[in-house]
Structure formats: C-alpha cells, structure tokens
C-alpha cells in the first residue's frame, strides 16, 4: 500500500492505484483519476455508472461485475465499453474510489 496525491489531497492507494478507503474520495479526485486514464471529461453517463458502482459497493461491500452494471446501472454493456475503455467495471471502480472488484474467482 502507498499514498498518492489527487487534486491536492493525499489518499491511500493499492499497487494498481485503487483507493483503499472510499471515505477519502471526492469528485475532484474522480475527475483526476479519469483524466489519467484518458477520459478527459466525465459526462452524466459516466457519473451514472460511477455513482451506481459506489452506492452498490458501500451498501453491499462488493463492487458489481460488468454484467450487473449492464443489467442494473441503466447503461448497456456496449456503451460501458465506450465510456470506460478496456475494463469498464475496473475503471469505474477506480474513478469511484472503491477497491478493485474481485468480480471473478
């Protein structure tokens, strides 16, 4: 575990840059993580997914999988890949300040 500085705030992150304490997160941090991942502007559709991820993690203790996102976030899977290139569930979790989804075992 190490620390990183986003939007002027020091936060704890894991080896891949996922925040380890969701309580340290804020919207400026989200925007900066997104920018580093190549997403210049977080649109309403991005936020819809990020907020869904975060709410779900905070209420259930685990981050939803891509299929759950596709079924329940209101954004279909194909669009998820357009919004969050490569791994939507992983990237949305990172932007949302929650730990990397275990997703798959």
């Amino acid at each position, binding site marked *: 575990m190490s620390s990183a500085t986003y939007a002027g705030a020091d936060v704890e992150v894991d080896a891949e840059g996922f925040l380890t304490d969701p309580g340290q997160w804020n919207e400026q941090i989200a925007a900066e993580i997104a920018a580093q991942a190549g997403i210049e502007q977080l649109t309403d559709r991005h936020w819809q997914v990020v907020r869904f991820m975060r709410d779900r993690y905070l209420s259930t203790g685990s981050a939803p999988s891509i299929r*759950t996102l596709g*079924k*329940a976030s209101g954004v279909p899977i194909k669009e998820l890949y357009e919004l969050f290139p490569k791994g939507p569930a992983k990237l949305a979790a990172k932007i949302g300040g929650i730990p990397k989804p275990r997703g798959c*075992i």
Partner: protein
Amino acid sequence: MPSAQPASNIEGMADRIVILGGGTAGTIAANRLSRQLGESARITVIDRDDRHLYEPGLLLVPFEMEEPESIVRSRGRQLRPGVELRLAEIDRVLSSEGKVLLGDGSSIAYDVLIVATGASLLPGETEGLMGSGWGETVHSFYSLESAVALRQALRDFEGGKLLVAVADMPIKCPVAPLELCFLSDWRMRERGIRDSTQITLLTPLDGAFTKPTCNRELSGLLTGRGIEVVSEFATGQVDADAGKIVSYDGREAPFDLAVVVPVHGGAEYVSRSPGLGDELGWVRTDPHTLQSLAAPNVFAIGDAADLPTSKAGSAAHFQAATLTENVRRHLSGEQLVRGYDGHVNCFIETGFHKALLIDFDYEREPLPGRYPDAHLGPLPLLAESRLNHLAKLAFQTLYWHVLLPGHDIPGVDHGLEAGERAAKAARGEMT
C-alpha cells in the same frame, strides 16, 4: 431406525425441510441432514428431472476419456432412504410466507428451505452464440449434449484455429476452459496436427486464472504448451459466418472451431422470488454461515449462492458441514456458526496423464505444498504430477460413493472443526 423416539418426533411434528435442486450440493445436503436429524425432519428434494450428471466428466467426454452414459445416474438413488424426491418445476419462492410455488400450480410449505439449484447456462445472452454456427463450428462443453457434439467436432477437426472463449465470469469450475486447452494440445499432438493448429484462450480476466499466484504457474504451463492467452477479452458477439469472435471493445479473434463457455446465471425462478437473489439470479447469502439474506430459515449451498469463491463441487462439499450444522442450530434456536471459509480445491488436467491440484479459500492463495497433509501429501499442490491425474480419474468413484452420501474424506479439514471448537469453548464444554 432408532429404537427410542423422543416424544416430539411423532408423525406430523417433524420439521419440514425442502431442498431445491438434487445436484451435487442438494444431494450432499439432503444426505447429511437425513443422517444428522433422523426422524426429527422430513426432507423433500425438488428437481425437474431424475438425471444426476457427474459434471467433472463433461471435460473428459470430448476427448473420449469418459463415455456420456457413464456420467449420468438417477438422482433419487443417490438420496438416503426416507428422503423424498419430487419431480416438479419451481415457479418461485415466497420466503415471507415460508412456501415454494411449483410449476403445476401446487405449493409446498417449509420450516427450512435450502436453495441448491446451481447455475444455469445462458447462451442466449451472447449475441450470435446460438446462431448459424451452433453445433457446426461453434461449440460448448458445459452440458452433456454440447460435450457430445464437441467430441465429434474434435474428431473431424483437421487443424486450424481453435478458440476457447470464456464469455463472462463467474462460471462453474473456472479451470475447466484451461483444461480444455491442455487436453486439446495433447490430442492434437497425438493426432500429428498440432503444428497446423493454433490454440487460443480468450478470457475476460486479466490473466489465465483469478488468483495471482496460481495465474503465474498456469500461464507458464500454457505458454510452455504453445497456448496463447488473450486476457481482458469480454466476448460481445460470435460471428460464425465470418468465423470470428468480437469483444465488446471491438477486438476480433478468428476461428475455425470455437468452444465457448456461455454466460452463467442463477436458476430462473430465483429472479421471480421476492428478495431472494441479485440481478443475475444468484442467491444473496452470508459467506460464512450460508444463511440467505432473504429470511433466517432460508439457506443456500453450492453454485446457487453468491459467495465470493469458485463455483465448484468441492466448494459445495466443504460448505455442507457448516450448512447442515446451521440448519440444526436454526431449528433448535441456537446461534449459527461462521464455519465456511471459502475453501475450494480443484484438479487441473494438463494432459499427458498429468494433473495439477490447487487448494485455496477466501483469504488464502493457492500455494505450492502437499495435500491433504502439508508434509505427507501424497498429492503435490500447484505442480503437475501423474498421481494428481490418477486421483482425478478415481474421483468419480469417490463422488458417487463418498461425497454424495455426505461423508467426510479422512484427513481432509471440513472447515467446521475450528468453528465447532470455538462454539464448545464458548459453551464452557471440554474440547
């Protein structure tokens, strides 16, 4: 039958236990509960048919290492005398009313319900998978019918691009697609067509397997056998006419023969049952007590539960001790034991008469060593050996005669012991 009956156990007073699903998990649970609770419980298992499939055999059927008819037996005959098997479709569970509605319009009430209906295959969720190439150039092996069709396709295969694709996670037995790659490599070498065959594994994971330590070992084995792994590939569409699989982010993988593991979900009725499951039909379950979050008298075991561990028969076997103890505790008003720790182990067939064995749980990564005893073994962990292969082949006998009847395997920790010791200590009993 016991000679002395407690007064409360007269006919009509017995607790009614209903188990949905007569597969690996449901059968083990039924037999253990029957032995543990005796006449004090009436146990009914509900399933839609009387065909119990030995699922680990599905991997071997395509390679003619197992015959289709030898991996199916009667469900009813795997259940102890006194356990009733009722053949019916399940319409929904009404956990607030303590009853299950059946497909024929009737209903069955329960004191305790155990959900053990496993995972369903959802090939329709992947665009084009069931299209023009299905059964021709596009195959699977997660059902008996598809495993038999793949067997013929592999016989007819004369070289080219063989794709093994995992459409999405979670799937039953997440090592099976890797084993299919290893066994295909072996078979193609034996047939002398390996040089003209490319074998590629498409996986949505960021490596060959979910657990990092294991991933390194398995990636090494795959590379050594000339099997290519394409990771973070989320299958979006199967286009049989063009002979390619396309990922959601637009990458394309060409094939002459594709073997696709379809998307899995929980049983269909779970989504119709208020409060029971999540969006994908997995039953929301406490990972340590196996009690469902829907109601205190509803439990889940095996693939049906949303537990963060592998969906595998060994997991159901290790869960059974905790499940049956907690059903007993629930019925007698005691506090539940947090006995299950996510323990799973699996044999991984690597071909050439060898196999690998891995063993892990919620916290513990699969590590090298020996099993079941850390020093004596005899089976090596996370290393290829002939003994592991022989153990895997012998496993079917063990499955029907030891696992399904709900017996523990000597020398193997069944997880409950530590919880039991703690509970006894808490009650002030000698250990």
